């Protein structure tokens, strides 16, 4: 891009100038999302989470699995957030227990959004009876409550990270597919897609080159929302006892282990709760930032 296109243009002028007129200030979706306060706050909140994912276990003052004192000991210099139901250091377990939840959530979301986007775009481009039937089949999956569906697989096949990733992805894929199909439907009818087809370009290439770049707005929004939900869902699995096997530290599992002593040693529950809250809040704020930036014209609608 040349330099002038990034030149700041007063917002009022933009309102007045007709769509036909002149170079509108062109900013990428990422660029305009980053200018929004909520996105900035989200990113700031995300920093401690990234630290936990990258370096959490090595920052822990104690071995998260070691018994360092009596059960439910209140915070002290020895254990800053006190101890849990078995006398392990809460702070160390909070620092070490986020990595698994966050990485599994991220991978599940990536897989689910990728599969869902592929399905949605294909359904939009191929259309016809096949597309409709595929979407109705996906509706059947959507009809199941998410948690019930995940619990069904996990209770049948046992608790494994790969299984959690696949099942959560399976739960999201149809919902992502619906949204992406809707977004792509207006794009595949555009003349530039028909032009590309008329040159003999294969459908797969058309999807990749023409359609996908025009739905990055809804795609990034969808990714953010699904990531938020994944974190909550996977933490919920841990709470219900389908997290990693003990004694591995896990935020969801920690809440269920320590909930009985909420009155005596609240930090054993609050620690992981703050972690989960921070993660969902940060991802949600960023997702909303992208959604707003997209609605304000970073996306396809503004460019046409």
């Amino acid at each position, binding site marked *: 891009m040349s330099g002038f296109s990034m030149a700041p243009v007063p917002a009022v002028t933009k*309102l007045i100038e007709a769509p036909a007129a002149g170079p509108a200030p062109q900013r990428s979706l990422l660029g305009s999302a980053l200018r929004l306060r909520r996105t900035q706050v989200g990113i700031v909140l995300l920093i401690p989470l990234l630290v936990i994912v990258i370096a959490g276990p090595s920052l822990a003052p104690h071995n998260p699995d070691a018994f360092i004192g009596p059960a439910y000991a209140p915070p002290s210099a020895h254990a800053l957030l006190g101890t849990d139901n078995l006398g392990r250091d809460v702070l160390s377990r909070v620092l070490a227990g986020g990595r698994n939840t966050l990485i599994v959530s991220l991978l599940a979301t990536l897989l689910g959004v990728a599969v869902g986007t592929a399905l949605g775009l294909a359904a939009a481009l191929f259309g016809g009876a096949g597309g409709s039937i595929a979407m109705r089949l996906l509706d059947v999956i959507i009809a199941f409550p998410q948690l019930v569906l995940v619990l069904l697989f996990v209770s049948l096949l046992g608790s494994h990270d790969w299984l959690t990733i696949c099942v959560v992805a399976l739960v999201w894929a149809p919902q992502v597919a619906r949204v992406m199909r809707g977004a792509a439907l207006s794009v595949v009818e555009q003349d530039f897609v028909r*032009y590309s087809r*008329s*040159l003999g370009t294969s459908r797969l290439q058309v999807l990749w080159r023409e359609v996908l*770049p025009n739905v990055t707005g809804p795609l990034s929004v969808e990714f953010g929302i699904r990531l938020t939900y994944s974190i909550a869902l996977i933490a919920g699995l841990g709470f219900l006892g389908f997290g990693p096997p003990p004694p591995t530290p896990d935020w969801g599992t920690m809440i269920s282990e320590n909930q009985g002593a909420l009155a005596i040693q609240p930090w054993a529950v609050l620690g992981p709760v703050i972690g989960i809250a921070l993660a969902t809040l940060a991802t949600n704020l960023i997702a909303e930032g992208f959604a707003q930036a997209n609605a304000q014209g970073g996306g396809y609608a503004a460019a046409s």
Partner: protein
Amino acid sequence: MPLRVENLTVRVGTTGPAIIEDVSLAVAPGEILGVIGESGSGKTTLANALLGYGRDGAAITAGRVEVAGHDIAGTPPAKLARLRGRVVAHVPADPGAAMNPVMRVGAHLAEAARLLGLPGRGREQIGATLTSVGLPADREFLRRYPHQLSGGQQQRVMLALAFFGTPPLVVLDEPTSALDAITQQGVLAIVRELCTQQRTAAVLISHDLDVVTAVADRALVMYGGRVAELGLTAQVLDHGLHPYTQALRAAMPRGERSDIVGIPGRPPRLSERRPGCLFADRCQYAEPDCHEQVPALTAVTTPVVTPVVSTPVAGTTAGPAAEHLVACLHPRPGTPVATFSMVFESGQGAGDGQPHEGLSAQSMCMRYHQRLVVNQVDLVLRPQGCVALVGESGSGKTTLSQMIAGLRVPTSGTVRLAGTTLASTAHARTADQRRRLQYVFQNPYASLNPRKTVRQILAEPARAFHFADADPAGALDAVALSASVLDERPSALSGGERQRVAIARALLCEPDFMVCDEITSALDVSVQATVVELLGRLQRERVLGLLFVTHNLKLAFSIADHVVVMRSGVVVDSAATAGFDAGERSDYTKELLASMTAED
């Protein structure tokens, strides 16, 4: 005086750039003032200001708008709302969007009657008003919903609503731009009649010189938010002294095979307005002082002309209103000259002697929900020939052209290219056949991927046809665009520039035939002329056959050697352009031809 505007300036914010600047005008009772301007000229802002309405962020910062004695700019919004309909009424460009889709025609009128406080729900007035706009006033019609009306009927209902309260001033914003030529004529005749009968002053905004010529007593040409020229319609349009008026006139297709001349460059955007005459950058007569000094609107003496529209505008012709005013430092009579001759080549091999050389479509049919939208159409396009396919919306012209290009699958019929029968979809045709027959879409805003740069867009043909030596910069040069746009995205380009990129993309395929579907309909007149000029040059230089789809019969005559008129899916006329109006024609074509001449 129903309308008096003095030194009106509308700015963005209160200190931002002026959208319209120092506009003064007056309209007498029964008089129609036509305001002509291209997109960005400020004509719609002017219309809105007359209604006391400013767009987002725009405000009247200087001057005065006086409608029948009321100071519009100084009136508080609540009082202004009461004035609308009684003192000033508005007719919008798109009646379909202006009417409430869930309200019947009768309910629209009853609402107006209630707001005007007419006794007995204005039953009698409603009947009289509908009759005056040429609509039936019976119960059945009043019970119709807007979607049950044709575009012309919808616009007549809007006229009825506007003239209902017999306001002294009616503002019409592009009232016929959504209508086809024949309907447009009828609507304009009603406007003329109502203004004369009710002694209503009207301001009619249009980009189309023909519309203004047809009904306006006086014409005002706007450029860059300022008045360029103002005077009697014939004075301004036939003996215009401002180079922009002359250029605009020369850019209009005149309905015969002749040069139409584009205006180079494009109108200045708000942020680009510099001191001096705003047209100077595009003016072929510009002198150094034009770039420094803002020309004032000054009276000139012109050859005496009789008003084309003979109406009793008593007391106005003698007054200052009849003055011919021009804002140009160096006004001179004349018309701009073409930079190069633009007459299109006639196809080689006259007659249908060698149809195997060209592109032909036989017995094309398209059925859509039990309805034949294209019915048994034959079409022959010789190499380097130019056939214009003319029809109103819904005539099947676009469907036909897309079937030829392989973008739609015909119900039946065959397309042949140089003697070979083509498959029905472009995808099933051979790469070479796809390359030789290119299609340019109507809407340049939809035919270029907004996420790609011009360079990436122009790389598509090379990728599809495995050209090793594609020259995007050369193709841009052929369509008169600088190579500097290569790294721009379409959103940085104007409509005309985008359409030229789309043409460049088609040219890179080195086609033998190009199907151009209404490629100028989204463009301003001056830009349309440059695009048409360009096609003429390319057709000659590159031995290109053109199928030019258009709703504009005048445009068709000015570029094509053969005109095919379609209506309701069938060809009603097909003949060479030379002597087209002399031969035996269908009633529909006769009507089209009549509407063409009526506007001159």
